């Protein structure tokens, strides 16, 4: 059981780009779980969404600015999550993290699924809120329409 214990003590460093509802929520959760987190946003007010107990770092700056990424020590990150409100920014951050800095885990949130060709050849995980919502709604409709058939 010793190796498992040791694994738990190694803190994974996660960088989150974009302190919106999703970014802030994720940062709070990771921080509460004792992970090492840094969150970047260009708007100081955005950091108000973080909970008072948030124990990570905040960085005021543009995530597409390489000096900001250096300051965030992106090369040391285990995971980079790009959840700004701009798809192109998220694609840029994800690609630079994955391909240029060699970050092992990169996740990007994208609104538009039409640009998939841009990143599908890279090791980038993508999340589409619209697709997820559609699936959920579909599920609800399905169960709603035919509850007895399902049962």
């Amino acid at each position: 059981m010793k190796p498992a214990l040791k694994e738990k003590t190694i803190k994974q460093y996660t960088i989150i780009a974009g302190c919106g509802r999703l970014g802030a929520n994720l940062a709070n959760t990771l921080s509460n779980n004792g992970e090492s987190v840094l969150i970047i946003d260009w708007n100081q007010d955005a950091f108000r969404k973080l909970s008072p107990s948030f124990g990570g770092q905040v960085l005021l700056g543009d995530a597409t600015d390489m000096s900001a990424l250096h300051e965030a020590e992106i090369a040391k990150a285990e995971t980079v999550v790009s959840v700004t409100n701009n798809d192109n920014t998220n694609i840029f951050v994800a690609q630079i993290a994955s391909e240029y800095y060699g970050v092992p885990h990169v996740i990007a949130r994208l609104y538009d699924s039409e640009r998939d060709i841009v990143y599908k050849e890279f090791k980038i995980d993508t999340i589409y809120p619209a697709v997820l919502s559609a699936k959920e709604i579909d599920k609800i409709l399905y169960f709603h329409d035919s509850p007895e058939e399902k049962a």
Partner: protein
Amino acid sequence: MNTRVILIGGFHKAKSLAMSLINKGYTVTAINNDQRHCSELAEIDKLTVFFGDGTKPFVLEDANVYSADIAIALTQRDEDNLVACELCKKKYNVKKTVSIISEPIKADFFRQMGIDSVVCAITAITNIIEQQAFLNEMATLIPIGEGRISLARVPIPAASPIIGKKLLEMDLPREVIVGCILRGEESIIPRGDSRILAGDILMLISSVKHEMIAIRELTGR
């Protein structure tokens, strides 16, 4: 077949580039996401203008990106330029993509992502200003290979320490080549034993790093 160029974003740059390219006989299409910019661009003769965000596939398709030979991204945001170029390259097989970038250190990353040519406006401008500030007598300087190499026209003043010297006696950096000596109406392709005279104009091919050293050496300042 006529070479087709697509310009994505940018206003002043797109405008002047479009005019210059149309003059040279290219077929040019501009995409811009600002209605006012679009109507102003549309005043340019023979320029096709599309209104929309050039980082969106359907806008690029409207602008008939499939048949384009060269795509040039000129928006102010590096991430938009990256995505626009990647779409053109990977989705629509545009042969050549060119992007401007705001931060010089991003150039390597852009090239790694498959963008054929990366132009950093800031580097280009600072280089030009530096050259202008140091040597006002220097008439022309043409950057080649994304600005890594330049072709400079260097007039040799009478006070220069190299007057009467042979090329091989001069202490030029190895990365610098004197490509041609312009002497009056003559143009001489120099050999090691060619002598430099006052009033000669040297055409220098050099790496950007060594160009200033070479020019100081040649003009004696």
